[in-house]
């Protein structure tokens, strides 16, 4: 097996994605490393050029990184800031130490990985001994990956793929079963002619023309490698998540229940016959859809505004499912409007659009298996309490009633946990009930949940889960230090 290991010498990786420079490219693509090899190669040495030409022909490698993809830990992506002198001698806004100079704020995409090692591995040994030696010499010269603030050591290593944290090209014939529910991530790779393209872009820059060597690369879909021996996941009550982009005036997450109530009523109106899974009047244990307002959360700049709407669909009879699909299609076509919210159109994204869409519009964001989930909206508990000491047991009961196993660990807080899911909504009591509903305000809590095994999402907890409250996001790792109970407002 041929493998290249990049060891980050610092805690962070800095390098923006070509299609979105404000977001880090994590994991660093094979094209990025290939470009670094091209940059340090001596193009007058035939063996080095021949090697580069051979590398561009290799099939895309497996990539080992932790976490495997940016989408798995969006909360670890940041924009590093600095003041940069603009070098303009202008204006009256004089600096105290540098007469007449001005500074401008600049930002660079930065990612904080859990592991400092990134490995690119090919399962066949495509290079001869002499080619390996040339590659090893080239690797020794690579000083950094991305920006110079991400110094690295690059080495040719013998490596086998670990059990977890591996991304493979979607076309890969690994031992894994290709689960169609798995997400795919576009990753830049070299292609036949990549070396020539990089040289041409460099030449354009040398001659003072616009060149963008950093944007070169062919996108290949990667997916997580899931081995047969992988820990079994716990299935939640929902089988599918139907997502709509919400187009219209931007609305903050405080309007979540208004939106989901509106969506539910619109779907009901478009159904050819009443469906208990939508209207909810049926036996207590009958499967019910959850109508969700998908907020922008989990990023440093997240503000909780609603990006999309979704319907989490449980296991239904085929006839019921057919009617529901029809009603959802009709609802999307007609859009939503209400006197209080305004007019909105709903749009199903094509697979291509979905790849480029905000994270909140990607089903994987809400459904990827995780043993740790944190609420984006508070969960409304299943009954009233006389005494706050009853709340921990009531939370356990509420989780079970919502169709999920009892967590091995949980913490609750009236307000979002500091820093765990930025943008999580801090709702007031009157924002946790349906419009016009006057049954009083049940207690609600933000929850931090750890389960014994990864749970498949979407995870929605509480008596208002059918209206989207209690919607959780999977997080990468425990953040118990951030979880703390704050004084109750509903006591």
């Amino acid at each position, binding site marked *: 097996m041929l493998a290249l290991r990049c*060891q980050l*010498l*610092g*805690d962070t990786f800095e390098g923006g994605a070509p299609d979105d420079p404000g977001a880090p490219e994590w994991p660093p693509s094979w094209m990025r490393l290939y470009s670094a090899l091209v940059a*340090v190669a001596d193009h007058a040495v035939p063996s080095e050029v021949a090697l580069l030409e051979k590398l561009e022909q290799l099939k895309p490698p497996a990539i080992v990184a932790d976490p495997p993809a940016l989408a798995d830990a969006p*909360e*670890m992506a*940041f924009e*590093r*800031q*600095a*003041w*940069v*002198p603009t*070098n303009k*001698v*202008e*204006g*009256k806004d*004089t600096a105290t130490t*540098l*007469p*007449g*100079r001005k500074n401008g*704020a600049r930002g660079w995409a*930065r990612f*904080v990985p*859990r592991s400092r090692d990134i490995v690119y591995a090919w399962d066949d040994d495509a290079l001869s001994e002499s080619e390996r030696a040339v590659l090893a010499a080239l690797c*020794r*010269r*690579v*000083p*950094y990956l991305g920006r*110079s*603030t991400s*110094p690295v*050591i690059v*080495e040719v290593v013998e490596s086998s793929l670990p059990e977890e944290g591996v991304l493979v090209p979607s076309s890969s014939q690994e031992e894994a079963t290709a689960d169609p529910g798995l997400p795919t991530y576009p990753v830049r790779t070299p292609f036949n002619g990549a070396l020539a393209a990089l040289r041409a872009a460099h030449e354009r*820059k*040398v*001659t*003072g023309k616009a060149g963008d060597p950093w944007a070169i690369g062919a996108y290949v879909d990667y997916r997580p490698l899931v081995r047969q021996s992988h820990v079994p996941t716990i299935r939640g009550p929902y089988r599918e998540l139907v997502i709509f982009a919400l187009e219209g005036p931007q609305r903050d997450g405080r309007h979540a229940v208004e939106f989901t109530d509106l969506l539910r009523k619109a779907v009901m109106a478009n159904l050819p016959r009443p469906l208990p899974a939508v209207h909810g009047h049926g036996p207590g244990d009958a499967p019910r859809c959850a109508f969700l307002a998908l907020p922008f959360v989990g990023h*440093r*700049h997240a503000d909780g505004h609603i990006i999309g709407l979704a319907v989490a669909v449980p296991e239904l009879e085929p006839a019921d499912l057919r009617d529901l699909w029809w009603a959802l299609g009709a609802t999307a076509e007609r859009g939503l409007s209400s006197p209080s919210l305004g007019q909105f159109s709903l749009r199903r994204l094509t697979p291509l659009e979905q790849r480029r869409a905000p994270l909140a519009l990607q089903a994987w964001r809400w459904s990827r298996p995780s043993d740790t989930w944190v609420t984006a909206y508070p969960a409304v508990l299943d009954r009233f309490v006389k005494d706050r000491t009853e709340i921990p047991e009531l939370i356990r009961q509420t989780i079970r009633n919502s169709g999920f196993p009892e967590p091995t660990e949980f913490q609750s807080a009236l307000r979002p946990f*500091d*820093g765990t899911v930025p943008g999580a909504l801090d709702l007031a009591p009157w924002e946790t009930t349906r419009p016009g509903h006057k049954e009083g305000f049940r207690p609600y809590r933000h929850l931090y949940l750890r389960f014994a095994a990864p749970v498949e999402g979407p995870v929605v907890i509480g008596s208002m889960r059918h209206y989207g409250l209690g919607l959780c996001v999977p997080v*990468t*790792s*425990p*953040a*118990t*230090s*951030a979880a703390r109970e704050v004084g109750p407002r509903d006591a």
Partner: protein
Amino acid sequence: MADLDALYERLAAAVTLQNDDAAIRIRAEYEPQAGTGAKVFPPTYMESNGTRYHFERRWSPEGTPVEVVVLDSYQSQANRCEAALDRVADRLGLPRLLMRFTHDGVTIELSNLAAPHRSRDAYFLDSVVGGTPFLVTPMGKELDQASVDDLTPLLIHVPTDLVYGLWDSHLKNRDLALKLARSYTSEMIGWEPMRGKRAATKGDPLNLPGEDVVDRKAWRPFETETKKKKEQTGKEEKDKLNQLGHGMIPAAPNESIGGVAVRSISRLGVLSLIGLAQLRFRDEEINRAGRTALAALALAGDRLAFGGAGIHLRSGSDLVLRSESMEWVQRGARTEPLELTTDDALQLVDLARERLAAAGVQWSPEPVVLSPSGPLAEVIRNVLTARGLEDAEA
């Protein structure tokens, strides 16, 4: 006392890719002078999400993401090293550019170790040497024509620029702007910050009526009005007393710049020897001696800036060093301890300078003194006299 010859040879082997040493890493722990948990003040940026500080997250040793705040950025730490080298430039015989300007008996000096864009800063590009525009002097031409294929002119005249990076982005009519990556990176962060508030109220011992409007000229007859003020008002200048510095100025508690209390403070510095190995000079002998001299300068800069008992980052952020370690970082994920005092580092530069001279590059200890050109001098003069740039342009 380190064996400087052995250290020199090891560095020389590393920067010519002849051994497994890829980098030198420095880790240090600090605490506020007032003790752990006392407030410190991070650098401020544009306000975002109610804060002017840069918060992000790191992985704790237990594998938990915890909040951190940047206490000193890469750029700032590099600037601290440069400032430290600037202070001992004479002792080190360090070549540099120096723009010098005298006005009313006050002399301002700006070296490439202090200028934002280093030797390619507009201050130098818009200066003259003995009446000749710097860029058309032999040295100016050499620096202007240096390329990644031969950086010898920068090694001769402004070697520190090669350590901390350079982007020659301001001259038109050229093929490719010279862009050199930094080889030294260092950053300081505070772990698990608790955000504070700042309420900076200005008190007045006699409680004068700060809101009263007065004739500024009557209060400050010695002040000269700026041209702009005259144009704006066309009449006597009126001010509130509190604008003249009297009266109370209460302030609401400000959370965006309220300082932080942190659990611990750490610095991580990396000198990439592979990065230095990418710099190419006139011949192989200079490659070896030049890159090693740059490594020595980088180590000296780090030791001078951070090798003391503590550091003053900015007002409200005086830190004491608790512990520090240096290590060689080698291929194969191996490390080896390195001990280097500030004196060792300075003597290493001496040794490297001698070996560089033997290889054919003689550093001139005398700075090259430049003077701002006529228009630039005029602008600086006006800024210094606080008359504003519009006066200069009139």
